């Protein structure tokens, strides 16, 4: 099977701080992958590399069978195709939301990608219902609650129907109920055939949103395997600071 994303010995540093240190990873199409790892292990950086927002200092990244480089994305047609296929939900929803209303926020992505207007209106109306945002339609996104913002951010990306969905801690800083709603939305994507890559600290909901888990440590892959196996490996989880020492899962 060919890999959708193929990363080989990727290094990335923020000025002097190394964030990815020789990371190699292959993600096959249709897989739901969870990126696990302690704070600072490189999850967010990896997502940005996958989304073609950061480019590695060394090593190679291949996406959809073609090299993902600054030069490749400088080509408008390539960038257009790539942005349509890959969606990214940022950890900080405030950063992602800047339109005057929720309606405009959902329409932003499709508009920038040049979909026909009538289709955009139709899609936005549909998404408002699907993400339970109809009542918030004319509200300003930055004045919503944390959970509502997250739903808008998710909807604003999923409305593009990307083949690949990248998410950075979609449930962080949400109350249990809002987190539950987000998890339910993500779990509903299971049968859509999408590739979903989620960075998360939330081990409890892991099984609902991912089949495979990749554990990062110090900018490298420390382990990967089916979610159940990774969750059962307490020694690994403790070593990579995902569990409190001596804690039991449940």
């Amino acid at each position, binding site marked *: 099977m060919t890999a959708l994303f193929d990363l080989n010995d990727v290094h990335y540093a923020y000025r002097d701080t190394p964030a990815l240190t020789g990371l190699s990873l292959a993600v096959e199409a249709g897989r739901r992958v969870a990126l696990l790892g302690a704070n600072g292990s490189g999850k967010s950086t990896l997502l940005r590399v996958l989304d073609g927002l950061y480019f590695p200092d060394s090593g190679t990244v291949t996406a959809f069978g073609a090299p993902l480089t600054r030069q490749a994305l400088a080509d408008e047609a390539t960038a257009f195709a790539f942005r349509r296929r890959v969606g990214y939900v940022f950890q900080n929803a405030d950063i992602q939301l*800047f339109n*005057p209303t929720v309606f*405009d926020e959902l329409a932003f992505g499709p508009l920038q990608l040049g979909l026909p207007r009538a289709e955009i209106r139709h899609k936005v109306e549909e998404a408002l219902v699907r993400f339970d945002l109809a009542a918030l339609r004319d509200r300003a996104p930055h004045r919503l609650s944390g959970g509502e913002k997250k739903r808008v951010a998710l909807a604003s990306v999923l409305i593009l129907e990307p083949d690949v969905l990248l998410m950075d801690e979609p449930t962080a800083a949400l109350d249990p109920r809002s987190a539950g709603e987000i998890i339910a939305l993500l779990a509903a994507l299971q049968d859509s055939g999408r590739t979903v890559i989620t960075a998360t600290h939330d081990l409890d909901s892991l099984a609902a949103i991912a089949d495979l888990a990749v554990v990062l440590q110090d900018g490298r892959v420390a382990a990967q395997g089916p979610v159940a196996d990774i969750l059962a490996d307490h020694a690994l989880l403790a070593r990579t600071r995902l569990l409190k020492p001596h804690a039991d899962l449940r």
Partner: protein
Amino acid sequence: MGEHSFLPGHRHGGGVLDRLGEGLLAALRHGLEADDLARRPGLLQGLDPRVKLAGALALMLMAVWVRTLPVLAALLGLAAGLALVSQVPLARLMRQVWLGVLAFTGLLALPALVLVPGRVLFHLPLLSWPVTLQGLRSAAFLVGRAETSASYGLLLILCTPWPHLLKSLRLLRVPLVLVVILGMTHRYIFLLLHSAVDLVEARRSRAVGPLPPRERRRLVTGAAGELLGRALDLGGEAHLAMIARGFGGEIHLLDDFRLRTRDGAALAGLALTLVAAWWWGGR
């Protein structure tokens, strides 16, 4: 980040931090209000953004050009009238523009009062410097022109959703880079304000008792530096988030701007105003 998480601060001696915090919070609240005003039903809100932009620019230029005080006053009055029919509270216009501009240009205009030679009206008490009619006139022009232009500028910004303003700038052939920079500046400011409020709240919640002045100064300068760093990070992030959603520089909106009858009427009104101002204000 919550603009509503703000707890009314207890004032321990009205410290610098507290005042800084309150100023920032007030600014943030204004920023948020601006968004609301743009969506209220009102005369200016209902006009095509291009008409508003062109009108505001023309009236600002006219305010700078007119040579008679009554016409300048009429233009300022027109701005106030437009604010009223567009649900912009005059108190707000006064706070945000008139007082600020007066403080600033008033300072610049003061020397003119005594330095411009001409018919002496009266002498300043104590100093007995002569105030001339011509001096008074040029000071009034300076302040009046600044007040009037600033009023039209603020009305434009308050009554137009930000993306629409950006798009009309593009339609008026303002270079793309400039529009993108303006757009990002808007995001920077917004995120900066959020960040500032968070920071001030965090510092405040950690400051248990009154600090010695030196310590306080250190805190404030530290906060300012950190804020700048954060703003740059956040602005960069915001830009990445836009790129991730397909933004390539050009702004596309759902609604094409459409000129309607009321835009035609507004343009006619604008033309009449400009001609009248030119006729009576020309000398």
